């Protein structure tokens, strides 16, 4: 049994080479990530030459940047197996190859994002020379692989790209890697960022706002190092009304789909005996009973959760499990009486999957939300609330057709088709799942939003 501490590709190669040439099986080697690299004993460092394909070596170098402890092990296994099975990499269905491809594509994506999102700030030194500085925080350790791009693009500028893992410095046509300087010594602004932000603001077509597409390609974790990101909130606000309009159109489409599905299921027995006999979707098969809303039918405020949980499914009443207790506490702090409200769920049956001996909640699909909207709409038209509080993303989707995060939807003013106003907040179970520090903050938000609902309803 051998073990080695490595933290970068060249070190791994130095250790792996002799082990591979002596045929050490992957199970006999333990790789650890560490700062204290020690080369192997000299007796092991007289290897016979190895024949590894260029493609494999490139792949190994790429996945060595993937921030996960298992990488060194996987790299060794791939090399070891490739020596015995030369066409291994062609088989993308092999679990090792598949994992390696996944890791490589994550690393390559991060390199690409580095090329895209590094932002230089200009500084003029005492000699009047212009220098360019960037601070970038990559998900994987891609500095070394990402930096040659900048050498080719800006060979005649002096620049520095600093990351938490190390820093690249380009001066007089030479690239060096140095210790990362104190972040506070880097420039905090650039005189031309204002122009760039003006461009960013004006090139955006707010009549077709599409935040999910933006977030998919430019995840929020990059925003803090992008000067243009300060414009995002304003643009979202400007575009919000048109976005909400399109959400409603999307909802119409969803409803049309649900209706189409209804027709498709028309030949199934439906005794139309209320939600308990509902066969609009398939969740009912594994649930105990439909859990209907309850409370005052002349309530000003209607609370909508996602779906009944384990306990609710058994008891047949909404919000009586752990999440219900969190909700009750929050209502009390916000000055609301549960008896004055109408409390229900977007989906009336419990959807779950087995996990050990427990039934684990499973989020309802959009089609299931759409199918169940029939019942929610009936409740809304019966109760005619002034305010509908959507608890969590499923409720938000069911009530308003929005797929926003709660964080952003809380800021919106959302009208409901019935004329009621929608207030969006976190689901009490999000508080149960959050770590203690976050839980307190979420709880405060929940109470604030409930209080806001109370004020709006008054």
């Amino acid at each position, binding site marked *: 049994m051998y073990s080695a501490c490595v933290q970068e590709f060249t070190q791994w190669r130095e250790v792996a080479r002799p082990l591979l040439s002596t045929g050490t099986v992957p199970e006999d080697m333990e790789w650890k990530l560490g700062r204290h690299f020690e080369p192997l004993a000299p007796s092991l460092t007289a290897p016979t030459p190895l024949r590894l394909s260029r493609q494999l070596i490139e792949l190994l170098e790429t996945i060595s940047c993937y921030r996960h402890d298992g990488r060194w092990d996987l790299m060794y296994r791939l090399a070891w197996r490739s020596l015995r099975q030369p066409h291994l990499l062609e088989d993308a269905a092999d679990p090792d190859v598949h994992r390696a491809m996944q890791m490589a594509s994550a690393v390559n994506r991060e390199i690409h994002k580095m090329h895209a999102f590094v932002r*230089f700030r200009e500084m003029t030194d005492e000699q009047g020379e212009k220098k360019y500085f960037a601070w970038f925080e990559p998900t994987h350790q891609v500095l070394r692989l990402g930096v040659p791009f900048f050498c080719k693009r800006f060979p005649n500028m002096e620049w520095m790209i600093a990351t938490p893992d190390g820093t690249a410095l380009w001066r007089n046509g030479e690239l060096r890697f140095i210790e990362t300087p104190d972040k506070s010594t880097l420039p905090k602004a650039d005189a031309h960022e204002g122009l760039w932000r003006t*461009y960013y603001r004006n090139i955006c077509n707010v009549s077709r706002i599409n935040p999910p597409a933006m977030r998919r390609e430019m995840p929020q974790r990059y925003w803090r190092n992008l000067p243009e990101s300060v414009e995002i909130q304003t643009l979202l606000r400007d575009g919000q009304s048109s976005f909400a309009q399109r959400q409603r159109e999307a909802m119409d489409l969803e409803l049309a789909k649900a209706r189409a599905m209804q027709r498709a299921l028309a030949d199934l027995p439906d005794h139309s005996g209320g939600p308990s006999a509902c066969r609009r979707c398939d969740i009912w098969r594994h649930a105990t009973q439909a859990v209907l809303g309850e409370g005052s039918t002349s309530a000003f405020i209607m609370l909508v959760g996602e779906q009944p949980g384990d306990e609710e499914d058994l008891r047949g009443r909404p919000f009586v499990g752990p999440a219900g207790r969190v909700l009750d506490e929050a209502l009390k702090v916000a000055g609301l009486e549960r008896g004055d409200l109408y409390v229900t769920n977007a989906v009336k049956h419990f959807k779950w999957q087995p996990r050990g001996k427990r039934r684990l909640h499973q989020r309802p699909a959009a089609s299931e939300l759409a199918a169940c909207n029939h019942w929610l709409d009936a409740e809304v038209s019966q109760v005619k609330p002034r305010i509908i509080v959507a608890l969590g993303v499923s409720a938000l989707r069911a009530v308003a057709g929005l797929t926003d995060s709660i964080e952003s939807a809380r800021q919106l003013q959302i009208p409901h088709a019935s004329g009621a106003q929608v207030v969006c907040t976190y689901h009490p179970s999000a508080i149960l799942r959050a770590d203690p520090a976050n839980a307190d903050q979420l709880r405060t938000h929940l109470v604030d939003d409930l209080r806001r609902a109370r004020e709006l309803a008054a």
Partner: protein
Amino acid sequence: MDLETKLAILADAAKYDASCASSGAPKRSAAPGKGMGSTTGMGICHSYTPDGRCVSLLKILLTNFCLYDCLYCINRRSSDIPRARFSAQEVVDLTLCFYRRNYIEGLFLSSGIIRTADYTMEQLVEVARTLREEHEFRGYIHLKTIPEASPELVAAAGRYADRLSVNIELPTREALTTLAPEKSDVSIKRAMGEIRLKLDEKADGGAKAPRFSPAGQSTQLIVGADESSDASIMETADTLYRSYKLRRIYYSAFSPIQRTSALLPNKAPPLMREHRLYQADWLMRYYEFSLGELSQAMPGGKLDLSVDPKTTWALANRHQFPVDVNTADRHQLLRVPGLGVRVIDRIISSRRHRKLRYEDLKTLGATLKRARHFICTADYRPQQSDRSSDGLRHALISAPEQQSLF
């Protein structure tokens, strides 16, 4: 007027052009000692705006003054908007300033038509020339070509630019006649033809022929400003691809503009329609679908908004399924809903080493939600092969997807 105000006006005026690609240029980089910039062949999107579009190039108009009065265009001469004009030097400086800070891949410069076509074209070419010759700029340049500009100016534009484009704007001549009475489809097509000829010359002449627009040409077509059906849009697209060797066509959902004409709809078409058109376009270009086959994916001339066109086609051709992923050739695999080009490459490479099972397809990245109805593997056959296409369609849309567009 200060630079920032001009930038605000002339970026705003340019945003209805959907094109943003910075791909297709040959690999090149700046020489030590002078200049800056590089292209890798792949485009880079440097930022994304809340409309979900990428910011790759500095996309601006040289000026939004315009002689024409095209009803669908925000910059038409009767439009009541602030007007501005950049000098060529201002555009050059702005491009270099943004490029140096790694904000952009390069410049996409277009313009309203002022004085004459040639005068306008000269201004655009001058910007590109200054960047290339005086600043040794090696980044990406996309120039709009003005119909009826002289061949010499088009040749000069192609010498400096990586890509040229002329916008066809509307899918039919009738629509163009109604909405842009001063434009002629003939002169637009002629301009595209001119570029096509020069691209051919370069292709035939090899290294000795002068450089000409290495990333080819593209165009844009506005969707939903007129009554044209999806079928007639795809027919136009097919004609354009075949006639002018376009790299790609951009489909841009019409944005209703304030104080619009009674001839135009006051409502934007669903963005899903734009998305489905791109999917249909992809089927023609990357999935070996002929226009005739595509028409089977557009019953009544319309693309189905709830189901993608490949699935619609497959539902109309059930007799060709299920396809055995272990034996089918590439062309057959390309027709299976839920299998993309990259997944198919992996299937073909992987099946040399193993008999593919259902689980393997998951690993290879297939979208089984759709594919499972149309494939068989070593251990799997679809159970519902006797189910009607209509029933299958309903089953497929009950699991909605691509919500991201909304």
